[in-house]
């Protein structure tokens, strides 16, 4: 700390306000924590300090905050949350920078578009369901050695690589005004399988989200992935498809990997238009 005397403006403590919830369907509540300021903190460290501290600002014993994280390098997509009102990865959310915007406190909330499991941890299975809907894979024949893939021009790689960096973190859908929360409860006596089926049914009718649209465009631009182009476009024109997009373009603005999601959406717009017209006249 002595070495950082030149930053004398820094406070001794940081107030961290966390929106907590003990489980699905429980009432959320706010809890305030106070942790000593350190230079170069990020939100992950803040939560680790809170866990090690074990008490809130008033000195009451408190459970560690539940949250999800993985690589801490912004490539795994696990640690998404709403920090000071904006969705982002908590690993790359630097406290010093956040305090420039709001010097009084740090406000941590779970993502609002997914059911809360506990505290800052949410159930993002709908994101992955979206990838299934658009068949985001290359339908190769087998995993045997069949020689190399098709030659691809650099231009194609340069178009596909940015899309392929999508880590399913959920920032885009959290900021999207057209993507709304679906939270279902397991009915008494309902089996896990039946509940999953009911959930998937609900997910499949709702907006698929920018990330999945972009993945559909990625695989439609792959020499072998193209084989499923029609099926992907059918999925994008089914209920909850591309038509639900309202062009608010928040997705691209909050994407931590700066993936050109709105370019993918516009591409999908053109592809679905042509696909539908073609189907109208050919079938």
């Amino acid at each position, binding site marked *: 700390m002595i070495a950082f005397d030149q930053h004398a403006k820094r406070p001794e403590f940081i107030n961290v306000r966390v929106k907590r919830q003990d489980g699905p369907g429980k009432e959320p509540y706010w809890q305030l924590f106070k942790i000593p300021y350190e230079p170069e903190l990020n939100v992950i460290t803040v939560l680790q300090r809170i866990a090690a501290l074990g008490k809130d600002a008033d000195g009451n014993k408190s459970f560690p905050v539940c949250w999800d994280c993985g690589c801490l390098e912004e490539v795994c997509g696990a640690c998404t949350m709403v920090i000071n009102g904006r969705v982002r990865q908590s690993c790359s959310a630097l406290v010093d920078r956040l305090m420039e915007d709001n010097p009084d406190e740090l406000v941590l909330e779970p993502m609002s578009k997914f059911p809360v499991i506990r505290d800052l941890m949410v159930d993002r299975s709908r994101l992955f369901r979206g*990838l299934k809907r658009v068949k985001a894979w290359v339908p190769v024949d087998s995993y045997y050695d069949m020689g190399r893939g098709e030659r691809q021009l650099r231009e194609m790689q340069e178009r596909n690589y940015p899309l392929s960096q999508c880590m399913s973190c959920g920032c885009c859908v959290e900021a999207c005004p057209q993507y709304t929360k679906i939270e279902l409860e397991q009915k008494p006596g309902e089996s896990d399988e039946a509940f999953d089926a009911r959930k998937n049914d609900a997910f499949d009718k709702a907006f698929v989200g920018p990330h999945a649209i972009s993945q559909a465009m990625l695989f439609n631009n792959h020499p072998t992935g193209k084989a499923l182009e029609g099926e992907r476009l059918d999925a994008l024109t089914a209920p909850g498809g591309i038509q639900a997009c309202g062009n608010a373009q928040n997705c691209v603005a909050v994407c931590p990997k700066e993936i050109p999601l709105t370019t993918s959406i516009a591409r999908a717009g053109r592809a679905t238009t042509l696909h539908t017209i073609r189907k109208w006249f050919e079938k």
Partner: protein
Amino acid sequence: MANQRVVVVGGGLAGLASTMKLAELGINVDLISLTPVKRSHSVCAQGGINSCNDQTRQLGDNEFKHFDDTVYGGDFLNHQPPVKEMADWAPKVIDLMDRLGVPFNRTGEGFIDRRRFGGTLYKRTAFAGATTGQQLLYALDEQVRRRESEGKVRKFEFWDFQGLIQDSTGRCRGVVAQDMVSMEMRSFPADAVVVATGGCGLVYGRSTMSVFCTGSAASRCFQAGAKYANGEFIQVHPTAIPGSDKLRLMSESARGEGGRVWVPRKPHDSRSPRDIPAADRYYFLEERYPEYGNLVPRDIATREIFDICVNEGLSVDDERMCVYLDLTHISKSELDRKLGGILEIYEKFQGVDPRIEPMRIFPAVHYSMGGLWADYVRTAAGGLEPGAPKNHMTNIEGLYAIGECDYHYHGANRLGANSLLSCIFTGLFTGPSIVNYIENQSEGHADLASSEIDSAVKKQQDRHDSLLKGDSSSDENPYLIHQELGDVMTRAATVVRRNDQLKDAIETVNELHERAMKVSLSDTGGWSNQNVLFSKSLQDMFPIAKCILQGALQRDECRGAHYKPEFQRPSLTAEDPAERRKQAEEWLDEFDKNNEKFLKSTIAEYDNASMKPKLSYEAVDTSLIQPRPRLYGLVGADIIEQVFKERAEAKKAGAAPAASA
């Protein structure tokens, strides 16, 4: 055939490759992972994946040379048949990944572009931007999702592997896992189990690994009787950005482009680095290695940075060990052009512009070469027998280990861009072996007695319940114990190892282990209790930590990542040619003697009663390439090499007549 089931634990590159291959072979797979598989640690690999290729072949490269580079880099502790098989498969693995849609960087003509990596003369490394691991993982994740939607794979994400189900013969018949959300404990009966749970970086507190790389899954197998091999071989990367939550990799290219490493001569100089005049700066690499300067090889850079902070106490920062990696003397435009991407990473996570202020860096634990011991079947030609049920099976029948948590491929030191290859290769290659194993069994997963299942589940439930109940006499905080463990391990068992320090560390770790066994939880609830999950994995870090320390203590030599200054072989001192030759002969005699003693895999078996590992040593298959000394930076290297070659030829000549006689 119709209803065979394999449980794969871990959804990184190896686990996913295994899952998709098994599904293709008609097996139903239950894939258990404590994180959504798309978030597995494999995403962090940046550099690339190696194989010899059309370009390098025309420059004289071939699979055998890739194999040779790998075992030379690993200081000959690698098992040669599996490494040979892997090198032979490497071009095919890359072809497959290409077909699966990995956006490898392309040449202007549309071929896969290659770059050169450390430890080789050839441009073998295929890469996809700066996120090759992520791209490879996603391609496999997509295939597994495809198989999942076909009903061949069931994913259990946010499920934590707790332990094995073994029948009375000891054969592994499935696993017990816990739902990390509902805390439900459940059995997963299977015909075979594959463990692909990666490395154990969290034993060191902070490392370049993801937060779930605790090694606890491997440890749970180890405690159930599986052998753990070569634990002491932990790769440390010289330049990482020390964050308070994790150590993030800083590419070697920063030094390559002219970065200078220094510390203030005055310990913990409180001045801003820009205000410290040249006279008060200690460019220790340049001073200690005038010839190579800042571009000394990785292991030496690592050791020197470590030495300057730990032994000389010259760390830049008081609380956090680090040195300056200075690029500020290079023009901004040049930096942006050559290093733009990696400087942005530094800026993003440190909030400091490295073009204006020197970066603070420190070595970081990066990869575990060791792991669960596993078998293999060698062919006459020196490769692996495809489809042999023993390939990658641990000493527990029916339990397979692949990926970073096996131990065969990287010896004492892993070559850059070989880890992604070994993960995918082992996942694919073991598929037919597992299928053949299952087909030879008379009893399948459905035949398992329910009493055996129940007792396995109960054992884990009891452990869970007793942790929740806690020990009223103690208030041990698991998070603080983890910090202490990390500190001890980082000090004693990373870059430079000394026996006195290792002995002390073993004692401290024993004490910590006992404290960890009676942690008191602040959260005793039954819903998404991360507190209890963390405590369990903390407790399970100790058997691995002890393997590392004990293995390091007993290995009195320098080999690859394991460096003990007391046992470093000296340079040649004599000036007189005859005397010098004599010294070289002696040097090589010592080398042979040392290999006889230590060119062996360390094998640990866990004794649950004493909570300590028992070590033994196992011969390494070096039948394909004769071990040769690594002589970097040694005075007299030329003469030693000459003598070595003469001896090798004499041996060959001696062996040939004997064979014909």
